[in-house]
């Protein structure tokens, strides 16, 4: 029995769903997810608790966590392997991605939304982005007023904020009807009162359906790399925020996926884009896959996360 299998057994009583899932992953997907889980279990004290929490949500929504994680991870790795060869993202057109991914139930409902949500417990880099979100952003969100998330996807970040700040309301926007359905079910499962939020259709390429300074906080997580003109969308986000309000913004550098179209080649390209859109960066972090024990080229697979005003 290897260390991780032993750890799963040791956590079986306190975190039964996580222990069972990790055991299944070791049988079914050790090559893809084993090293990351091993890293998290050794270096992140909250891993088992977070895994239990997110898996509990996934199962409550009738998901198939191992399958979703494997399919999502595999889809990402295939795209990233292609990027390493070509140095280009496979997709360049937003409408193509919308057709093949955001409007495609075989992708969104079968593995994308659930798999992506679960990576926040099972991928070291997403675990750390989520931790940054909770520690740096949520702690600065006021417990009153309305906030927004553009491209809420699975809805986990909306759930976290509204749980932590019961005095807030949120207007979420997403282009995918499948995302709106999944996020609604996640928020209902999390017992967020329906009157506190709305989940609306929006195309990020168009003017936001929000008045100037309407929002007291905003999330724009893993969206920049999905859109053809991030500068326009970031300006729109800035316009909709009250001055001085916190914004959580993330993107990736040299990191391909089935729906990435805007390529940053260096993390230093990101801050100027944000400042040109009117944001002031308060805290930022560059997370590299090489930080997690990989021997890969450290310039490949980088996440940029920041808190901005």
């Amino acid at each position, binding site marked *: 029995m290897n260390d991780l299998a032993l750890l799963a057994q040791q956590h079986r009583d306190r975190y039964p769903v996580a222990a069972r899932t990790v055991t299944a992953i070791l049988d079914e997907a050790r090559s893809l*997810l084993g090293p990351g889980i091993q890293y998290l279990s050794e270096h992140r004290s909250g891993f088992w608790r977070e895994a239990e929490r997110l898996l509990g949500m996934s199962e409550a929504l009738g998901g198939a966590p191992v399958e979703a994680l494997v399919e999502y991870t595999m889809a990402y790795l295939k795209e*990233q392997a292609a990027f390493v060869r070509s140095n280009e993202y496979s997709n360049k057109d937003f409408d193509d991605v919308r057709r093949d991914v955001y409007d495609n139930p075989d992708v969104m409902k079968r593995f994308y939304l659930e798999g992506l949500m679960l990576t926040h417990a099972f991928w070291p880099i997403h675990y750390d982005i989520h931790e940054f979100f909770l520690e740096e952003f949520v702690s600065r969100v006021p417990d009153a007023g309305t906030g927004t998330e553009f491209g809420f996807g699975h809805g986990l970040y909306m759930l976290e904020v509204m749980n932590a700040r019961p005095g807030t309301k949120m207007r979420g926007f997403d282009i995918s009807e499948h995302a709106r359905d999944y996020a609604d079910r996640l928020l209902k499962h999390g017992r967020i009162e329906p009157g506190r939020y709305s989940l609306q259709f929006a195309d990020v390429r168009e003017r936001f359906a929000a008045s100037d300074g309407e929002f007291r906080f905003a999330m724009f997580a893993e969206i920049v790399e999905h859109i053809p003109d991030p500068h326009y969308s970031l300006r729109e986000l800035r316009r909709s925020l009250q001055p001085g309000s916190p914004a959580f913004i993330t993107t990736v550098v040299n990191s391909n996926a089935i729906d990435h179209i805007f390529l940053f080649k260096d993390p230093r390209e990101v801050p100027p884009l944000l400042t040109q859109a009117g944001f002031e960066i308060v805290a930022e972090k560059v997370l590299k896959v090489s930080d997690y024990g990989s021997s890969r080229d450290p310039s490949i697979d980088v996440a940029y996360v920041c808190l901005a005003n």
Partner: protein
Amino acid sequence: MEITLERLTQVFRDVFDDDELSVSGETTAADVEGWDSLTHVTLMINVEKAFQVKFSSKEVASLQNVAALLELIEAKRKK
């Protein structure tokens, strides 16, 4: 099986860019420097091309060592 291992070793050497790399049935990812999840998928894509076979996501994800990969290649080629 030995012919397959020989060809498979060549695929490994190409992917890991190491002409001296030697693998056996017992070899696992832990034994080869740089064999992470991305390299694993790259390796499988190259194996598919070299042996003209196609693996499912589940098959790629569940492989535990080189012996399992050899068995999978043999099974696919018999079909």
